[in-house]
């Protein structure tokens, strides 16, 4: 299995915070029509 080593703890913001920040930024871009509609 990949990723079976425990990740070392490091200082700085967590992965979660980066993910939340990116998602919120994307939500704002969509809300204020700064990016075209996203299709699937």
């Amino acid at each position: 299995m990949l990723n079976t080593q425990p990740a070392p703890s490091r200082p700085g913001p967590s992965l979660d915070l980066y993910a939340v920040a990116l998602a919120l930024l994307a939500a704002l871009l969509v809300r204020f029509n700064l990016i075209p509609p996203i299709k699937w």
Partner: protein
Amino acid sequence: MIPAHQTNISSSKETSIATAAIATPKAESFGQRAVALVPGLLLLGAVGYAGKFIELSINAYAKAHHTPFPDIEFVLWAIVIGLIIANTVGIPRIFAPGVATYEFWLKAGIVLLGSRFLLGDVLHLGGISLLLVAIALSLSLTFMHLLGRAFKLKPKLTSLLAIGSAICGVSAIIAAKPSIDADDEDASYAIAAILALGAISLFTFPLIGHALHLSDKAYGLWAGLAVDNTAEATAAGALYSDAAGKVAVLAKTSRNALIGFIVLAYAIYWSSRGQAQVITNKAQFLWKKFPKFVLGFLLISLLATVGFFSKPQLASLANLSRWAFLLTFAGVGLRTNLRELGRQGWRPFAVGAIGEAFIALLTLGLVYGADHYLKL
């Protein structure tokens, strides 16, 4: 973009057991780290899009030729393609940092998925999930410890397996490891067992769900409560149906929210036995261990509930979430190395497997009960 050091593929190769199949090359500056992510991200995109392309092609062929063919979601194709690549040609090191971002896309996708839930639904289904998790937790933790004793596993390895299978897989084990001063080797064993069992559940859960004719909600709740790792729980739900995938994410997110409390309980237990550090500030400890993407999910759900987004915008956010999950599912297949299964000790795997089967049955019973009495 996330720095490579925030990803979960460690560059360390200290133990031969459960060694990561690929490792992160050391990058120095932010720019170099960002560039190092590109090949793996392209691979994730290519594998995920290939899965989507196969699904669309099969559906188009079946429609054009009036051939009845089951609609197999892109999720399965993306995972299978990833599995084939990882277990035949392998993943060259250059792709490692980018592939490791699959967990980042999972969390971003979950936050965006919040837009598809009204806050009332979140509280209703999330509340039911928490109630079922609390019942399942107490029974499954007890069962796992009895199993660990029966199979003569080291107590801390048993604790890690119990936390991983009862709460939330790899993240919970990583969160618990320093808190209970567990060995690297124990954590590697526990993570390997949980990932292997997660891979198996991807293929068994949808089959069982269809055999039992579970509704989307009941199946999604079951997958979210029983499948350990968040990526696998999301994939197992999505393999059943889009609606089931949504519910699985919600149930799993509720479960994730409990990580801190369980890890704290174990830390207090082990420190009371003089085998772990004493926790002085419990509130700070809980906040540190709390998965922050749960708050992002709730915030987006709240914004959607108060009408911050128009309908087309909600559709865009839902599609963005799907694209993020597409990268995640590709990563699930790419990071699964079946050869490593044979290199694990059989006892941790046996304890994990028996424990998982117990938890799957227990949660299935609870979901049936909740469906009947609490109206999912």
